[in-house]
């Protein structure tokens, strides 16, 4: 070894530089850095040479060109005459749409199943267990294919659409629903709802402060519900209570009017929610079980009502356990939404894929996919970290 090789009469202070851990570590780090740099150089130079040799176009100039392909569904106006940049933006919005709705539904369903799993009712708890076990163990892509096939193979064509409730049509073109016909009242009701949300928030702050000051509680929940429902209702009545509905009707090939959910979107949402909810249910169950029984009993013995026990004692502690894994499940759902490309929902990956193919610029396309998802991931974790800190503080 190195120690035996050094002559015995060497002065310790003059020992070789590699015997100094700090210097050695510097050398190691420089070595690693050099290796990574070499690897990067190797890959980049190869890529440049290949691109040069095959005269493949490079750069992001294509973003300004006309996309000239149509996109099935879009939250913003889009036509084939728009640019690639706009097409990709449509894709981003579609991804956000399915992820946001998916996350909300997943949390609701997952919580429900998680609580059902803990139910004292044997049957309910078993059913929840079966749900969790089965859906966790089947690849989400397979589930997506299954639901997509279900939508377009099992459901009838638009002309024989199922009509379970007046105004709702179910066919292999998706779910069409009647919506209120456009009327200024609806816009103002939206504003009223927004105002109500703000008021509830203020009310809650005030109620907290009052409770902290005087010890008197205030029924924030019920008054909040009242505000949220009452204010828009009031506006609606003030505008003469319009009741006209925009009912979907067959015109030409498809339904016109109303709003529709395409089979692709429905299959994607259903598959993602059912799959992820199975994981969320396990997280919720573990979270609730992590709160020891003593806590509940202690709270009860203080005379708190069951609702308050849950709200003030169990949930704040359980959430602390639940939030971190829940965050990663939300991220998983967002990332899994990229499987949309397999069933033809125009999410970001799907649009980027088409773009890659029409322009032949694979490097730029794949880089964009990665950057966009990294942004989603970072934003979601940033938000959840903030929320996590917030509850951690409330607990103290």
């Amino acid at each position, binding site marked *: 070894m190195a120690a035996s090789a050094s002559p015995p009469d060497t002065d310790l202070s003059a020992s070789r530089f590699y015997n100094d851990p700090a210097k050695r570590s510097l050398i190691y780090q420089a070595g690693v850095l050099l290796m990574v740099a070499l690897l990067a150089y190797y890959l980049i130079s190869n890529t440049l040479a290949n691109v040069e040799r095959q005269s493949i176009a490079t750069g992001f100039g294509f973003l300004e060109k006309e996309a000239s392909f149509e996109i099935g569904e879009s939250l913003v106006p889009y036509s084939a005459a728009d640019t690639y940049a706009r097409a990709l933006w449509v894709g981003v919005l579609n991804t956000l749409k399915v992820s946001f709705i998916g996350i909300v539904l997943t949390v609701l369903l997952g919580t429900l199943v998680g609580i059902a799993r803990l139910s004292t009712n044997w049957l309910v708890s078993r059913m929840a267990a079966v749900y969790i076990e089965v859906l966790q163990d089947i690849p989400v892509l397979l589930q997506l294919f299954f639901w997509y096939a279900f939508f377009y193979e099992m459901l009838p064509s638009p002309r024989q659409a199922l009509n379970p409730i007046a105004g709702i049509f179910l066919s292999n073109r998706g779910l069409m629903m009647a919506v209120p016909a456009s009327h200024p009242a609806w816009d103002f009701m939206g504003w009223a709802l927004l105002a109500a949300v703000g008021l509830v928030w203020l009310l809650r702050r005030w109620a907290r402060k009052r409770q902290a000051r005087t010890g008197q509680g205030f029924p924030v929940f019920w008054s909040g519900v009242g505000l949220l429902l009452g204010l828009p209702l009031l506006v609606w009545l003030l505008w003469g209570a319009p009741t006209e509905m925009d009912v979907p009707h067959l015109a030409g*090939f498809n339904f016109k009017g109303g709003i529709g959910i395409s089979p692709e979107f429905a299959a994607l949402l259903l598959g993602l929610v059912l799959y992820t909810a199975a994981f969320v249910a396990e997280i919720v169950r573990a979270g609730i079980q992590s709160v020891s029984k003593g806590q509940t009993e202690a709270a009860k013995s203080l005379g708190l009502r069951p609702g308050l026990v849950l709200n003030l004692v169990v949930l704040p502690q359980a959430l602390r356990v639940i939030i971190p894994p829940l965050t990663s499940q939300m991220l998983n759902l967002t990332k899994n939404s990229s499987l949309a*490309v397999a069933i033809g929902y125009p999410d970001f990956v799907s649009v980027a894929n*088409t773009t890659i193919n029409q322009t032949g610029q*694979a490097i730029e396309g794949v880089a964009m996919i990665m950057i966009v998802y990294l942004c989603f991931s970072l934003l979601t974790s940033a938000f959840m970290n903030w929320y996590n800190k917030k509850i951690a503080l409330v607990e103290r």
Partner: protein
Amino acid sequence: MLLRKLIALLVCALVLGLTGTLWAGTLDDVRAKGFVQVGVNGDLFGFGKPDAKGVWKGLDVDTGRAIATAIFGDPSKVKFIPLTAVTRFTALQSGEIDVLCRNATRTLGRETALGLNFAQPNYYDGQGFLIPKSLGVKSAKELDGAAVCVLPGTTTELNVADYFRSNGLKMKPVVIENTAELAKAFFAGRCDCLTSDASQLAGTRAVAPNPDDYIILPEIISKEPLAPAVRHGDDQWYDVVNMTVLALINAEELGITSQNVDEMLKSKDPKVQRFLGVSPGNGKALGLDEKFAYNIIKQVGNYGEIFERNVGKNTPLGIERGLNALWTDGGLMYSPPFK
């Protein structure tokens, strides 16, 4: 310790075994490998699809066989690699395949930005619409508001958007990245019409549960010269591929078929003699065997035979020669002289 060394060895062997070798020119590389790697469709009846026994059949497949025959004198020295519309050009760029015979349309963008060279088209196509009869639509102009099934990342996707836009119609695209699954969605009624190259539509219709329930609309909305493609910058290989397709056409022009090719060897016609390598020169110029054309025609057949065998009137597709007839019969198939 031995365990670790073994693992290291194994990794090395894996990496060596699975990476290819450096290539000089594609032709030399193909010769060294002993086979041609041809990218094909895999799902398209009549052009490239394995039958129930796993034997590849189709017009593009036979074109690939002809290329193998030109080089090796043996149509079996070929490996077919099924590719999706999205992966086809990358497979060619990366050297995973030597030539792409996958009903790819020759366009300016693909010749330039994608770095490809297209050879002589082996099929002149045009884009059309397949619809269920029950819709009662007689013309593509009546398709306003229709849900249109289309393959993503293809020229057809752009054409159909252009067509609807220029006619002031609205459409709702349904995109599925696989020919067969797209057809499945169409038959299940997910969309009102399926748009693709007319030849593909004929193929799709032929495999429908009830072919008579579907019709192809009369409008042809685009030009689709489908041609084999190779990488930019290897002229020798491009010549081999290009001349192989042209040889198929030339043979039909000269009236040489797989049946009479042996008799034709005795022909006094100098054009036939040069073509079949009786009077040498052509083969050497291309870097191939002098008898390359003879081998192709003997073992694969001329263009007319390939066409009739795979997509012609007596197949389920039942496609007329139309644009793909010889120029002498009013078509576009025209071969330069082989001299």
